[in-house]
């Protein structure tokens, strides 16, 4: 930590040797972290795209990819309900993203543009629920859904997932709308535009980075979710991909190859988001702590 600490203090080290030691230790730390971060992801890909007999030939795991095959993916599609699970995941994830984001846009706008007593309390309540453990919310939701006969429904899971993401998306939009100057709206009003027109044509376009971040966040929460789906969905054909795939390793016919293949599939949506929406994502990080 000493060497690192000195590194952070700027590049003005008086002695040559000291500078070199610092340089070397920086590189060493960078390389170690890079290995720690990268190797697990690499292993996933390497196992997913090779046939089990190639990877596990001779007792030792062979991680040098020399022959790529889609065999593992084929097994997934032929022998498991992966497609069904994926469809379920997509349905609830998209629904929850739309619900959570529109809720956040409406609430965020209302909270910044209208005044009322107890706003501080509202802010604290939103933040407090953001820290809440999903499993603690899942238990009463389970009992309520059970009583209402709503278990194993897309609607129930969508509500539950939105419950987890909404506190943060609301907080995000609440903060974001404050960066939109009210004078923008006022000048539109002066020119005769109605409040709703103004909201639609002036405020929303300006707030786009805000609600794209909110949508990315709620998408990630819902796509990633295991807890809520595990509790709300108990019928095999209603499982989301995370719950469905979590049972793969208990099955004799499914090995590490197929397991890593399904992992790779699960990673595709988040990676596409990272690829195309990275800037929005970083903006989201800046406004508030992402979970």
């Amino acid at each position, binding site marked *: 930590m000493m060497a690192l600490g000195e590194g952070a203090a700027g590049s003005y080290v008086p002695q040559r040797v000291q500078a070199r030691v610092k340089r070397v230790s920086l590189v060493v730390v960078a390389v170690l972290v890079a290995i720690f971060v990268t190797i697990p992801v690499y292993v996933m890909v390497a196992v997913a795209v090779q046939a089990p007999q190639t990877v596990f030939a001779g007792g030792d795991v062979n991680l040098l990819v020399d022959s790529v095959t889609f065999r593992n993916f084929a097994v997934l599609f032929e022998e498991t309900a992966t497609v069904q699970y994926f469809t379920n995941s997509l349905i609830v994830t998209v629904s929850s993203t739309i619900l959570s984001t529109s809720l956040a846009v409406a609430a965020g706008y209302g909270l910044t543009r209208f005044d009322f007593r107890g706003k501080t309390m509202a802010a604290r309540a939103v933040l407090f629920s953001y*820290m809440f453990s999903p499993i603690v919310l899942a238990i*009463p939701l389970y009992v309520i859904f059970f009583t209402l006969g709503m278990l194993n429904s897309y609607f129930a899971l969508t509500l539950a997932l*939105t419950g987890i993401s909404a506190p943060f998306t609301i907080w995000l939009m609440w903060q974001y709308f404050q960066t939109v100057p009210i004078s923008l709206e006022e000048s539109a009003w002066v020119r005769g535009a109605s409040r709703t027109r103004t909201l639609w044509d002036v405020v929303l376009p300006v707030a786009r980075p805000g609600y794209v971040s909110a949508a990315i966040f709620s998408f990630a929460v819902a796509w990633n979710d295991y807890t809520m789906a595990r509790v709300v969905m108990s019928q095999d054909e209603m499982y989301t991909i995370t719950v469905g795939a979590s049972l793969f390793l208990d099955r004799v016919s499914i090995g590490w190859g197929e397991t890593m293949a399904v992992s790779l599939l699960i990673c595709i949506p988040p990676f596409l988001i990272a690829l195309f929406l990275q800037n929005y994502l970083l903006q989201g990080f800046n406004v508030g702590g992402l979970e």
Partner: protein
Amino acid sequence: MSTSTSLSTRLADIDERRLLLLATFVPLVTFFIVVWAVPILYALGMSLFTDPTGASVFVGLENYAEILTAPDFLTFLWNSVVYAVSTTVFSLLLGLALALVVNQQIKGGNVLRTMMIFPYLLPTLVVIFIWQFLFDPNLGVINQWLLDFGVIDEPIAFFSTLQWAMPAVAITSVWKFGSFAFFILLARLQAIDPNLYERARVEGASSWQSFRDITIPHLRGAILIILLVRGIWMFNKFDIIYLATRGGPLDATTTLPIRVYELAFNEVNFGGATALAGIMFFLLAMVAVVYFRLFTPEEEVAA
């Protein structure tokens, strides 16, 4: 929102401001009542009954007493604290180390930054699959490497060995969540005025001194947020531990959230589960009081 548009044009003479107010607050309030207030109150109610799904009997605080005096309670609490503290501290150290390195603008710093976001984006289930494979006693590369280098004599089943389960779960968690600390600290580091360092250098400060007197004070707030917020989240983590070990072997990785799940779905004791959830709620509320005392996040959103 579109419904409010059509409504407002049709009812043009009704105060538009009031309509907009309704359109923004009705969904918010309805949603919070349905998905947060009702379940939480319902849970608090359930915690006062035995078997609330069948013939429920009001038992007052008996469930709470039972949970708190159970011989295992302190074990579960201890596991939660060990898990939360170790993962938070190591995420902080990992994030700090890397943030300081990337902030130096060494070659490949941008690549490192992009790489750090990967584990964070991977769904928890995938993270668990990967690490279960890496730690696998027969096929896992970690055991192979440790054997090759002579560190161990025989493979270790990390996730199912009493003394290794918790460290293995913690390492997995740090791998996934280290980037949280990294991004917050990096943002803070890049906001420090470079002139401060220049002035310190001119006045003859060593690099250690300027690290201590400039960098650390600027990071203090961010470190506090990471310790508090990350700590709360890790204390509440359910999925990563449950997927990795189901709370086992024995109770080695059973934290309070895992115990809540076990009580509800393995032992069908919803009174006990909700009582324990109530206890967690109380602990969280106490930490939240500290949080709102130290920071005033609601001031960030104009009150």
